[in-house]
């Protein structure tokens, strides 16, 4: 614009001084509060409930952490040549968590303005800094709280007793997390694209896995993990304050397009978190950070018909998502890591590692099925029956999970002393993972209208838990022979036969296009009123 003041050609009325950004924010908030109808009593009640819930959650988490801590066997006097000490593992996990945090900060953008703020605030000629200040503080604060919680739980659960040390560790976690988020914000506000920052986070995550392998192979022994002294934390806090000040100074120069993108991702991600929809969360975090245009167009040479077209499309989606490929590699290393940490190389430790890593790998391999669930038209574009589509959607997860299973169960075999049978068991269990992946991807949305069940952890919405458990239920039940073999640390031919049967059952369930629960379907069959998820037993995309 020219430096001379611009007199608008058309005006609806006389124009005076511009209001401050704060007054705009206050007007918006006041109108919202006036309509919320919340009394002081109900507000206090909400605060009380939130504080009590947080306190119970923290107490339960620290109780579990302490339980884990006391049940861990002591470190061996002489560590095996290929091993990783517990403090070294925690260091690697913290590095991985830092990678995840940077990746998230990149995907969420420097600062976001939600849909309404973008549409109604960003066009106003008031200083943008005043409008965006609360949004700019939100991400570092959330990052700090998450960082403190993760570090405190790791410290209390694996390294030391709850006390001053844990408090200091939590403080350090909060400072480092806020620092990383603010650094990502500063870098992005300097013009670096979001996807590049996200890629740095993904690379750090991948490097943490490589570092863990290197440390274990080298037999590096880290006896204890140092915790930053208070003066260092104070210095860190000052750096955080400095970066926050720098970000604040740049808020006015952030372009609307970046604010709109960031706000859109944050709104979608927040909605997904609140509604416990991990698929939507994945979509929110993937969409904005990928290249809008591909450098080359796949020719799909192997496509011979609708079935191969569907599989080729799924494969292309997985291949073009570096985040999911990194996720698969990291997940493949986790069970091996559990077997080389002497304190974790026991049945519970390895079992938890396999379950967690399997869940991560399975989620990474589900991109095609998730896309099909989000856009049912994709499943109907090809001349294939709905059940056939489900079966074909298992192909890519099947290949990915076979690779993961061979790596994970190979490590288990090495730990148990006989690799061959474990690899066979892994191959037989692969269809279960693939079926669970597809079943989870096609689960219906959470049904919040079902009754709550009171538990020691608070009210549990049954309509949500039944939906969220779709997929994991197959892993638990249809891989039972594998779990029993793992508990016994021995694979027998009977387990192999039973696992084959489990795979067949999982394949049949994974191919099903019914969306209701078994109970709902029984109700419906008996002529009763289905009380299941929206849509009852309707066949999504059925023919």
């Amino acid at each position, binding site marked *: *614009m*020219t430096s001379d*003041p*611009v007199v*608008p*050609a*058309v*005006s*609806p*009325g*006389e*124009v*005076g*001084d*511009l*209001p401050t950004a704060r007054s*705009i924010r206050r*007007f*918006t908030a006041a*109108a*919202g*509060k006036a*309509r*919320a109808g919340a009394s002081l009593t109900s507000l206090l009640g909400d605060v009380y409930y939130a504080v009590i819930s947080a306190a119970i959650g923290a107490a339960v988490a620290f109780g579990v952490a302490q339980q884990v801590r006391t049940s861990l066997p002591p470190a061996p006097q002489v560590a095996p040549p290929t091993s990783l000490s517990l403090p070294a593992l925690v260091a690697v996990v913290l590095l991985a968590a830092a990678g995840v945090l940077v990746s998230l900060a990149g995907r969420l953008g420097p600062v976001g303005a*939600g*849909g*309404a703020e*973008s*549409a*109604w*605030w960003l*066009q*106003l*000629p*008031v*200083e*943008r800094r005043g409008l965006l200040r609360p949004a700019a503080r939100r991400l570092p604060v959330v990052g700090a709280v998450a960082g403190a919680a993760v570090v405190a739980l790791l410290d209390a659960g694996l390294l030391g007793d709850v006390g001053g040390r844990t408090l200091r560790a939590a403080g350090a976690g909060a400072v480092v997390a806020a620092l990383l988020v603010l650094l990502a914000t500063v870098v992005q506000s300097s013009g670096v694209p979001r996807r590049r920052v996200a890629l740095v986070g993904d690379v750090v995550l991948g490097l943490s896995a490589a570092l863990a392998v290197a440390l274990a192979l080298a037999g590096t022994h880290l006896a204890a993990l140092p915790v930053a002294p208070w003066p260092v934390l104070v210095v860190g806090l000052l750096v955080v304050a400095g970066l926050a000040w720098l970000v604040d100074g740049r808020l*006015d*120069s*952030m*372009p*609307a*397009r970046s604010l*709109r993108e960031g706000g859109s991702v944050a709104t979608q991600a927040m909605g997904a978190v609140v509604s416990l929809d991990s698929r939507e969360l994945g979509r929110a975090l993937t969409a904005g950070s990928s*290249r*809008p*245009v591909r450098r080359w167009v796949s020719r799909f040479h192997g496509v011979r018909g609708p079935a191969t077209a569907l599989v080729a499309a799924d494969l292309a989606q997985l291949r073009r998502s570096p985040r999911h490929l990194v996720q698969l590699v990291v997940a493949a290393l986790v069970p091996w890591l559990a077997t080389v940490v002497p304190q974790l190389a026991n049945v519970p430790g390895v079992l938890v590692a396999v379950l967690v890593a399997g869940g991560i790998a399975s989620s990474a391999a589900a991109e095609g099925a998730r896309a099909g669930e989000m856009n049912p038209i994709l499943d109907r574009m090809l001349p294939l029956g709905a059940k056939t589509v489900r079966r074909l959607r298992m192909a890519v997860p099947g290949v990915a999970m076979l690779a993961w299973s061979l790596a994970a169960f190979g490590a288990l075999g090495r730990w148990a002393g006989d690799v061959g049978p474990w690899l066979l068991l892994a191959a037989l269990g692969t269809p279960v993972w693939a079926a669970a992946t597809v079943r989870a991807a096609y689960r219906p949305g959470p049904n919040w209208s079902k009754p709550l069940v009171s538990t020691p952890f608070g009210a549990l919405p049954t309509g949500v838990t039944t939906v969220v458990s779709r997929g994991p239920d197959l892993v638990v039940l249809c891989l039972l022979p594998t779990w029993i073999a793992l508990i016994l640390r021995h694979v027998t031919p009977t387990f192999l036969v039973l696992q084959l049967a489990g795979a067949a059952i999982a394949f049949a369930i994974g191919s099903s296009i019914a969306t209701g629960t078994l109970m709902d379907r029984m109700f419906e069959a008996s002529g009763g009123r289905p009380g299941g998820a929206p849509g009852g037993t309707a066949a999504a995309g059925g023919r």
Partner: protein
Amino acid sequence: MPQPVVRAQDLLVGYGGAPVCAPVTFTLQPGRALALVGSNGSGKSTVLRAVIGLLEPAGGKLTVLGAAVDERTVEFRSAVSSVLDDDAYFPSLSVAEHLYLVARGHGVLDAWDRVDELLDEFGLVDHAAALPVSLSSGQRRRLLLAAGFARPRSLLVLDEPEQRLDRRMLSALTDRLVAEKAAGGAVLMASHDPELVRAVADRALHLDDQRNEMLSAADAAARIARIPA
């Protein structure tokens, strides 16, 4: 000759470095209206997004009121009013409060009086206290359009303003845009409505991925009318 409100010279717009249409060249003077026409995906909305600073041009030159587009400046936001297809609202603000926010945010002194006038003009009086979520999509569209007129401006950018409007409202909007020109305002709009283009635009730029063509409003209207529904 007054300074053009918008000047685009070989402007290239697109996503990820891939242009969506041929380079765009046009000037828009105060008190004039230019319509962007063309089939779906021809780049109309993309050009508009570049003009209001929501998209970095991939090439060429683009100025608004004599300076490169920078929507971060107060001057730009004071001068350029845009109505895109955003369908987002503050969930707790009523229709009237949304309009007041825009008017007062731009320093309009008797903002509530102006809001009342706009509510009347856009047929929203009965919904003044309603939350946008309770409105029909057509009523929400009227709210967005009313917001575009609730503030001072030198350039009005509209993306398919005819969307979801009934004939009566569309006729009133046409009159409003003609009056906008008469008052010295410039109008840049994308449209698929031949009547709106014929009545409001002085010229029309037909966008295509091979070659763009400047047409008279009448020719553009006739070309739009020939496109099968």
